[in-house]
C-alpha cells in the first residue's frame, strides 16, 4: 500500500472537466496534443455505453415495429438488417460506421441518420447560439452588479432571480412566455422557426446554410429576416434564462473573489474609478472560470434544447429526438445521442484550449 499521494494526480483541478494529463511543465503544443487525444476515449466510452444500453432492451426493429408485423416478417427484417448476429460483431461494425460518419437509416421514415443530423443540426445550433447570447447579456452585467452590491438588497433580488432561472424547467418558462407574449399580448409568434412564407422562401434558396437568419440576410430578404428574429426570441429567452442564472452566480462569486485582492485595493488608492475597477481589474481575471463553465454549460444547453424545441415546435435535433423517441425509432435516437456526445466532447476541448491560451497556469 502506497501512502504518499502524488499531487499531480489530484482531481481537484476544477479547470478541466476531463482528467488532465499528469506531467507538469509541458509546452502549449504538448498540452494541445494530449488534450486533443483525450477526446477520443470520452467519445469512445459514450458510444460504447449508448450502444450497449440501447441493445440490452432488444433489437431496434422489434421495438419500432413489434406490434405491426407478424413474427415471420419481423424475423426477416431483423435478419436483413443484421440484428441477429452476435452483439459484439454488430458493435464493431457500428464503431466502424460511426467512424466514417454513417449512422444507419431511421426505421420510422427510412432516412439516412446522417442526413437527419445535417438537416436539423443547424436549427439546434442556431437556438443554442441565440440562447447563449441571451444568457451572457443577462448573466454578466447582473453578476457584476450583484458582486459590487454584495449582501445589499439588489444582490438578494438578483440571487433569488438566478435561483429562479435554474429552478424553472425550460418547458415551463416556455409555456409562460407563450401565454404572456404570444397569447395574451399577441406580440410574438409562439411556434416554429419562421412563418409559412418566410420558411418557403428560405428553404427554396440555393445551398442554404440552414441557419435561417443567415440565409435571410444573405438573400437580402428583410421581411423574412425580421420574421425569423420574431420567431427566435421566445425560444432563445426560455433556454437562455436557464443558463443566465448560472452565469450570474459564477460572475458574482468570482468577481467577489477578485474584488478583495490587494491589486484592486492598490488600483483604488491610485485613483482608478470604481466602475473601471469592477469592469476591468476585477472582471478580467474572473473570466477564466466563466469560460470553463461555459463549456460545461453546453451539455446543459443541449439537454435544455431538447425540451425547448419540443415546447416551441422548433424543428431541430431535439424536436426530432422527441419524435423518434415516441416512434420507438432507436436507430435514430442512438445517432442523435452519439452526435450530441461528440459535440459536447469537442466543445469541452475547445474551451480547455481557450482557457489555456488565456492563462498559462492551466497548462499542466
Amino acid at each position, binding site marked *: *500500500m*502506497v*501512502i504518499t*499521494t502524488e499531487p499531480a*494526480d*489530484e*482531481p*481537484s483541478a476544477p479547470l478541466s*472537466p*476531463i*482528467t488532465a494529463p499528469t506531467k507538469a511543465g509541458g509546452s502549449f503544443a504538448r498540452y494541445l496534443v494530449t488534450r486533443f487525444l483525450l477526446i477520443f*476515449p*470520452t467519445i469512445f*466510452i*459514450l458510444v460504447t*455505453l*449508448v450502444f450497449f*444500453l*440501447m441493445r*440490452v*432492451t432488444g433489437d431496434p426493429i422489434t421495438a419500432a415495429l413489434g406490434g405491426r408485423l407478424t413474427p415471420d416478417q419481423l424475423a426477416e427484417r431483423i435478419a436483413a438488417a443484421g440484428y441477429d448476429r452476435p452483439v459484439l460483431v454488430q458493435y464493431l461494425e457500428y464503431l466502424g460506421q460511426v467512424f466514417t460518419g454513417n449512422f444507419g437509416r431511421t426505421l420510422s421514415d427510412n432516412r439516412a441518420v446522417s442526413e437527419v443530423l445535417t438537416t436539423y443540426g443547424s436549427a439546434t445550433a442556431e437556438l443554442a447560439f441565440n440562447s447563449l447570447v441571451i444568457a451572457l447579456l443577462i448573466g454578466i452585467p447582473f453578476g457584476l452588479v450583484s458582486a459590487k452590491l454584495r*449582501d445589499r438588497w439588489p444582490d*438578494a433580488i438578483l*440571487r*433569488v432571480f438566478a*435561483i*429562479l432561472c*435554474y*429552478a*424553472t*424547467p425550460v*418547458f*415551463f418558462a416556455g*409555456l*409562460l412566455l407563450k*401565454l404572456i407574449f*404570444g*397569447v*395574451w399580448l399577441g406580440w410574438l409568434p409562439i*411556434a416554429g422557426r419562421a412563418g409559412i412564407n418566410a420558411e418557403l422562401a428560405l428553404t427554396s434558396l440555393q445551398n442554404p446554410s440552414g441557419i435561417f437568419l443567415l440565409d435571410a440576410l444573405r438573400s437580402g430578404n428583410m421581411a423574412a429576416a425580421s420574421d425569423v428574429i420574431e420567431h427566435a426570441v421566445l425560444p432563445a429567452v426560455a433556454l437562455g434564462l436557464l443558463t443566465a442564472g448560472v452565469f450570474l452566480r459564477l460572475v458574482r462569486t468570482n468577481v467577489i473573489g477578485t474584488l478583495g485582492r490587494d491589486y484592486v485595493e492598490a488600483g483604488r488608492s491610485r485613483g482608478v474609478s470604481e466602475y473601471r475597477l469592477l469592469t476591468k481589474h476585477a472582471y478580467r481575471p474572473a473570466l477564466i472560470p466563466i469560460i470553463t463553465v461555459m463549456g*460545461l454549460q453546453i*451539455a*446543459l444547453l*443541449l*439537454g*435544455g434544447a*431538447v*425540451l425547448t424545441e419540443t*415546447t416551441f415546435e422548433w424543428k431541430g435535433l431535439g424536436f426530432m429526438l*422527441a419524435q423518434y*423517441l*415516441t416512434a*420507438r425509432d*432507436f436507430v435514430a*435516437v442512438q445517432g442523435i*445521442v452519439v452526435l*450530441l*456526445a461528440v459535440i*459536447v466532447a469537442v466543445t*469541452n476541448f475547445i474551451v480547455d484550449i481557450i482557457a489555456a491560451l488565456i492563462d498559462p497556469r492551466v497548462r499542466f
Partner: protein
Amino acid sequence: MGATTVTALGAKKPLWTRLPIISHYRMSAGLQRGMLVAGLVLSVVFVLAAALAPVLAPFGFAQISDADGQFPTQAAPGGKFIWGTTVGGFDVFSRTLWGAQTALLVIIIAVIASIFLGVFLGLVSGYLGGWLDRILVVLADAIYAFPSLLLAIVMSIVITGGQSDLWGGILAAAISITVVFIPQYFRVIRAETVRLKAEPFVESAKVVGASTWRIMFKHVFRNATRTLPLIFTLNASEALLTLAGLGFLGFGIEPTKAAEWGYDLNRALSDATSGIWWTGVFPGAAIVLTVLGLTLVGESMNDLADPRLRMRRKSRRRGGKATA
C-alpha cells in the same frame, strides 16, 4: 484542515446543535438566515403536500367522475374544482398534490441510491487508487460531461422501454437519475479521500494496525462526507427537474397510474395556445417552488460552510468553528 476536522467531531456541544440544518441556522444571520428559512419553509410544504396528498386532495389523480357524473373538461378554476380541470377531465388541484408524492418518492430513491453507490465508489477509488481508480475516473468524467437528460432518457428506455405503472415508473425514473448523479458524488468523495489519505490521522491508524477497510469506512468516510448534505439538497432539485423533463417528453409514468408534473405540463402546452392557463401554471409553479426551496436550503448551507461567504452577526464574536 485536519485539526479543525478532528476537533469539530470531538466538540462537546449538544448533539442537536451539530445536526446539519440546525447548526447552519444557528450560524446564519440577516439575509442569509432569511434565505435559509424561506427555503426550509418551501421544502417542508413540499414534503407535507406529498405526505398528506391522500387526505388533502379532494379527488384521486386519475378520477374523472364522481357521484354527480363526469367532471367537466377544461373547466376554469372555481367552485368544486378550485384550480380547474384539464382537457382529460382531471382535477388540477388534486393532480398537483399527488404529483408531489411521486416527486418525493423519486427524489428519495434516486438520491439515496446515488449517495450509496457514489460514496462507496469514491471511497474505494480514492483510497485504493491504481488502475481501478483510473478507469472509474475516466468513466465518471465521460458520463459527467454528457447531457444528463439524454442519459436519463437512454436509461429509461433500457429499464422500461418507455411508460410504465406507478412503482415501475418511479423506480425507472429514480434509477435513470441515479446513473446520472453517481459521477457527481464520486468526484467529490474521491477528491476528498485522496486529500485525506495523506492526513496524519490516517497514517496513525495504519500504525496502530487498523485494516484498510476500517480506515476507509471509519476514518476517511466520516471526514469525507461532511459536504454531503449540501450535495444532497442540490441534487434533490436536479433529480426533480430530470423527472419533470422525462415526464415532459413522455418518458415518465402513465397518467392513470400516478400524477406527474412534467407530464401534466406537456398536456398543458396545447391549452396554452388557446389561453387556458390553469392546467400548466399550477403544476409548473409546483416544480419551481419545490426546486427553489431545495436550492435555497442548499445554497445557504454552502455559503454558511464557507467563512468567506458567511455573513457575520454584528458585534458578536463567533468561535473559531470554521468548517470549510
